């Protein structure tokens, strides 16, 4: 049985070719698949290339970027498409939600009209029909009193409401795939929870696929079925979110989980208790170390790590997990492994 995944990326590499300077690799050898109705989390720190990955999927790479590998949406190769074909795919097949919705909204236009505009543009329906559809959409993203609010301008709304409008605009064209780049980073936690609820519901009820990009492991845990951990422009580990967080195999994933400041019921913060840290900092794209990109910060590195980039190895019962580490154990996950203790009492 082979059902085609909605999105399949194989060995994607993106290299910047600045005029008159050496090429700079941003993404190397990224592979992932995403099925209809599923949510994929892309998590990484700054400099991990996660935003470049989303731009590549949207076909919005800067002109100086060169991409290699394949990106297939419903089996159709995207990287080789001309710009005119891209325009049809963006919006209609792929929707995008931004971190700060204010930058994506036209400040001088009522929000109802902004949503309707896209519907008219792409579906060619009458204005009145589009207006009604816009109000429906506002209702779906749980803007109360949608009919009246459709006449508001963006500045009259709170950050959370603007983000809902951003979602409604992306939804208007009924895309197969929605990409949300740090959709809740600018929002308060209580509002964040509401936005994540809305995204959940859309995935569940519309069968839409969602890619959620975040630096926050908590958001990823909350929202994503599958997760890929990116570091320095490449995937380090991927798998079902539960398995990945409960039983991480890559030292970087383990380190990130340990370094996350968390509430720890029952643990005192008395003198001496410290968070686990990952020493050093993320390498810049222009001076990437040879071999494994995490080697310089890794406690488990050996000479072999410096020699060649570790291959992406699949494991797990159905090959559902992948890891890029020479030292990672690839045996089956222990079923009921207790949550690792994140506090390192000294």
């Amino acid at each position, binding site marked *: 049985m082979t059902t085609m995944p909605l999105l399949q990326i194989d060995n994607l590499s993106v290299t*910047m070719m*600045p*005029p*008159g*300077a*050496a090429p*700079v690799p941003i993404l190397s050898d990224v592979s992932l698949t995403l099925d209809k109705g599923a949510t994929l989390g892309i998590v990484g*720190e*700054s*400099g991990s290339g996660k*935003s*470049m990955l989303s*731009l590549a999927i949207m076909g919005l790479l*800067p002109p*100086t970027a060169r991409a290699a590998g394949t990106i297939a949406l419903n089996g159709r190769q995207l990287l080789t498409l001309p710009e005119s074909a891209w325009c049809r795919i963006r919006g209609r097949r792929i929707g995008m939600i931004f971190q700060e919705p204010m930058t994506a909204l036209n400040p001088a236009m009522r929000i109802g009209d902004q949503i309707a505009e896209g519907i008219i543009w792409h579906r060619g329906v009458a204005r009145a029909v589009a207006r009604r559809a816009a109000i429906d959409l506002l209702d779906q993203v749980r803007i109360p009193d949608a009919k009246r609010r459709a006449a508001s301008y963006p500045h009259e709304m709170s950050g959370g409401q603007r983000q809902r409008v951003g979602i409604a605009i992306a939804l208007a064209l009924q895309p197969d795939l929605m990409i949300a780049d*740090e959709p809740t*980073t600018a929002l308060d936690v209580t509002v964040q929870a509401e936005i994540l609820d809305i995204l959940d519901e859309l995935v569940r009820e519309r069968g839409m696929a969602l890619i959620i990009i975040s*630096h926050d492991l908590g958001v990823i845990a909350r929202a994503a079925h599958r997760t890929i951990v990116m570091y320095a422009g490449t995937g380090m580990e991927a798998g079902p979110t539960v398995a990945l967080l409960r039983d991480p195999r890559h030292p970087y994933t383990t380190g990130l989980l340990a370094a996350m400041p968390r509430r720890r019921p029952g643990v005192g913060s008395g003198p001496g208790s410290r968070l686990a840290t990952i020493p*050093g*900092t*993320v*390498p*810049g*794209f*222009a*001076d990437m170390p040879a071999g494994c990109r995490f080697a310089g910060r890794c406690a488990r590195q050996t000479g072999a790590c410096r020699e060649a980039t570790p291959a992406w190895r699949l494991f797990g019962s159905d090959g559902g997990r992948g890891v890029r580490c020479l030292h990672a154990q690839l045996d089956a996950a222990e079923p009921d492994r207790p949550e690792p203790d994140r506090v390192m009492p000294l």
Partner: protein
Amino acid sequence: MPRSAALSEPAAGRAADRAGHRAPASRVWLRHPPLALGALITVALAAIALLSLVWTPVSPARMQIAFRLQAPLARGLLGTDQFGRDVLSMLMAGAWNSLSIAASAVAIGTAIGTLAGVAGAARRGLIEAALMRGCDVLFAVPPILSAMMLDAFLGPGRRGAIVAIAVFMVPVFARVTGSAARQIWARDYILAARGAGKGATLITIEHVLPNIANPIIVQVAIQLGLAILTEAGLSFLGLGMPPPTPTWGRMLADAQTYLGVAPWLAIVPGCAIVVTVLGFNLLGDGLRDLLDPRAGGRRGLSLPALEPPQTPDRGAP
């Protein structure tokens, strides 16, 4: 610490803050041809103007009626005017007059305007509002009108022209520095300086002025071009320097009568003005690109807004 190529650019918004650490000078000229051209024109003009103080081919005031209205190359490089004066010599002397008046006016305008701008930004509220409304009033007075009034007041001459143009420059600089300084005042490092017990004057000197130097420098270059134009306009109307001092504006005005028989009399000073203004504008635009990568986008590859404000490490100590 060697900065590794262009990719170490952080988010573009920060880039403006990081002037002062640039590529080697030789590469700057190659990467910014307009800047190089603008600088070349400016330096050449300044050299010609200075040279005219000690040497011109003929004394610009010497009239030789016998050789009046000679075409270029017939007598002297650029011919003679209706009194038989050497056009090249007048042009050189005029360069000094135009440039010195423009430079003095812009210097005065920059000094007073910048002072008003940073003072307004440092002392918000009533003082700022008063300064800015004052600027609005100055803006509303056309420079020609104020020059005519000042001419009547100060008598015709260099001083009147300088003051008239400077009056027109002050609000420009007050606005530019005022808005730039207000942005700097909103930064956290200003709060840190206040937390260190520093007063408004000290903060302005230590933090605000160094950080708004770039827009001021750019504005100076652009306003120099404008000042040249204004000066030419004033002397065209017979305001500013009195005859027989040669100025480009008066050369143009005098040439009108002979446009049919001696078109070079108008073309030569006209070209001089165009080239000078063009030079200053190129210089200004080039400096803006050089000092503010956001506008130019020519400094190699940048990765604006791809990642949150944090930057990948660039190797620190």
